């Protein structure tokens, strides 16, 4: 516009045009004179908690320090990772930052399960009149993990064919020290007198017999979390995946508490493998992996036939958490044939879909057909010697496990139930 006025003034030989130009020139000149060449801002970030549960809140505190010249107008904006939301206060502030001063602001964020990385704080610096604008990105890293909720399970009964040498809670199919009766064998020196089976010994004239109990040991357990879109995602954005993640977290927690060596494989668009391990550190690793787990689809992993069985020790326990697809039957049978003990925890997709669909005659009929198909599939799987927990997700997972997978009390085991 200044150039236009200049040109117009020259063409029209009119000094008035130059007069109109003067206020704008003064304005630009003032902006230029008051602009800051040197911007030396530093940022620091602190999170009140780095690991929270879904939709809980954590307070993010950001401090901006000005080491350079006085800044008259600074727009500070903390760049939030996708999916995180500000729950209270604000992550954007318009401030004046004098030389060698600092400004601290706090806000709380919340979000769904996931791993989030805070990286930069954006600062837009304007001069006194707002003529010049400079944007700088200040490094202020932080991490937030929103872990899936872990439901405490009292006991998960599994029966792998092979156990490890350490004492645990899984029946080892071998005689020794334990609680459950295993068999009777000839007395050996060193056997406790109270282990002598007097009734059996009475049948023999020259030998004593001792009771043997089943050894209880730990085992290798591989949890496979099915994250395929074709099995987890449904119409209108509904997904069973969060339930599957919750089940996997609860199972991993319970099995690790029992002393087992647990690994996790997330089977989605790609494979995410958490190497087997023991204890609390492994629990953290698995929860970390579950926090990052996302459903995905790929041509390669659309079926379970590409499940990398070599990751799991031979004859160990595999727990597949999957809503199951009708094509999954054969790969499961093959797993069983390879000697793995397989347990399928299957969130029921039919009941899940039915819970949010309108109750019409057609829906009811379709649900009935699908329910029969699913029942047939589960029966086929069970007939192959695979243990199945059909989980209606409207029922809490711990309750479903208690009904199907918990160890019966000692008196019930004693009477053979």
């Amino acid at each position: 516009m200044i150039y236009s006025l200049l040109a117009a003034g020259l063409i029209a030989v009119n000094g008035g045009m130059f007069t109109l130009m003067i206020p704008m020139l003064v304005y630009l000149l003032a902006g230029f004179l008051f602009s800051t060449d040197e911007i030396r801002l530093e940022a620091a970030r602190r999170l009140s908690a780095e690991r929270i549960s879904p939709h809980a809140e954590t307070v993010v505190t950001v401090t901006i320090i000005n080491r350079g010249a006085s800044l008259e107008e600074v727009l500070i904006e903390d760049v939030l990772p996708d999916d995180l939301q500000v729950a209270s206060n604000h992550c954007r502030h318009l401030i004046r930052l004098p030389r060698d001063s600092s400004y601290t602001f706090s806000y709380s964020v919340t979000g769904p399960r996931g791993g989030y990385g805070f990286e930069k704080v954006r600062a837009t610096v304007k001069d006194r009149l707002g003529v010049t604008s400079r944007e700088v990105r200040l490094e202020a890293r932080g991490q937030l993990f929103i872990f899936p909720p872990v439901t405490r399970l009292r006991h998960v009964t599994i029966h792998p064919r092979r156990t490890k040498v350490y004492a645990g809670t899984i029946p080892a199919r071998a005689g020794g020290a334990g609680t459950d009766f295993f068999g009777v064998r000839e007395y050996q020196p060193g056997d406790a007198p109270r282990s002598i089976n007097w009734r059996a010994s009475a049948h023999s004239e020259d030998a004593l017999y001792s009771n043997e109990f089943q050894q209880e040991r730990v085992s290798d357990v591989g949890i496979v979390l099915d994250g395929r879109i074709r099995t987890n995602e449904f119409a209108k954005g509904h997904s069973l995946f969060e339930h599957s993640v919750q089940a996997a977290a609860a199972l991993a927690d319970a099995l690790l508490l029992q002393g087992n060596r647990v690994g996790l494989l997330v089977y989605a668009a790609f494979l995410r493998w958490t190497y087997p391990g023991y204890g609390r550190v492994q629990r953290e690793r698995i929860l970390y992996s579950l926090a990052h787990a996302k459903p995905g689809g790929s041509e390669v992993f659309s079926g379970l036939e590409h499940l990398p069985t070599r990751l799991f020790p031979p004859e160990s326990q595999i727990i597949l958490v999957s809503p199951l697809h009708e094509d999954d039957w054969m790969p499961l049978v093959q797993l069983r044939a390879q000697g793995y003990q397989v347990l399928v925890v299957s969130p029921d997709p039919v009941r899940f879909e039915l819970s949010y669909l309108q109750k019409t005659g057609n829906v009811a009929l379709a649900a009935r057909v699908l329910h029969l198909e699913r029942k047939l599939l589960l029966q086929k799987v069970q007939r192959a010697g695979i243990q199945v927990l059909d989980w209606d997700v409207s029922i809490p997972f711990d309750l479903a496990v208690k009904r199907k997978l918990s160890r019966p009390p000692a008196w019930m085991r004693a009477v053979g139930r």
Partner: protein
Amino acid sequence: MVLSIIVGSVSLAYGYFEAGLDAPARWVVSMGMIWLLAHWRKLYWFSSFAFFLMLFTAAYGVWMELPTAWMLLGALGGLLGWDLSDFARRLQYAAPTDDIQGLERRHLARAGIVALLGGGLAYLSLVIQVRRLAFEAAVGLILLAAWGVTRLVMRLRKY
């Protein structure tokens, strides 16, 4: 901001009205009203367009040899209106807990000083008139002004 828009558009309209150009005067007043309405509806993009129109109207008025003082006041009002509208847009990003009043106070003071200085210098240029200036000197001054403006704009573009 409202005051600067009203002063700017009314000055321009008065300048045109005084010269007997009623229709352009009414258009200028209407434009001022639309600008106010746009600001109320938070259509901040309109302020740049309105400023351009006001400046164009002022330049046209000067070319038509209407009173330059009124045209200058109109352009100055437009400039202030545009600046304050942009500032209002920036203030939208502030959190309610920020010192908005302090920012407003300081910006108004600065914009006021710059407007007074710009207006004063422009008025001086109207009052002080060099009776005799050699053609070569005039061309030299104009070239110098163009070079200065170019340097200024280039420097500002860095930001």
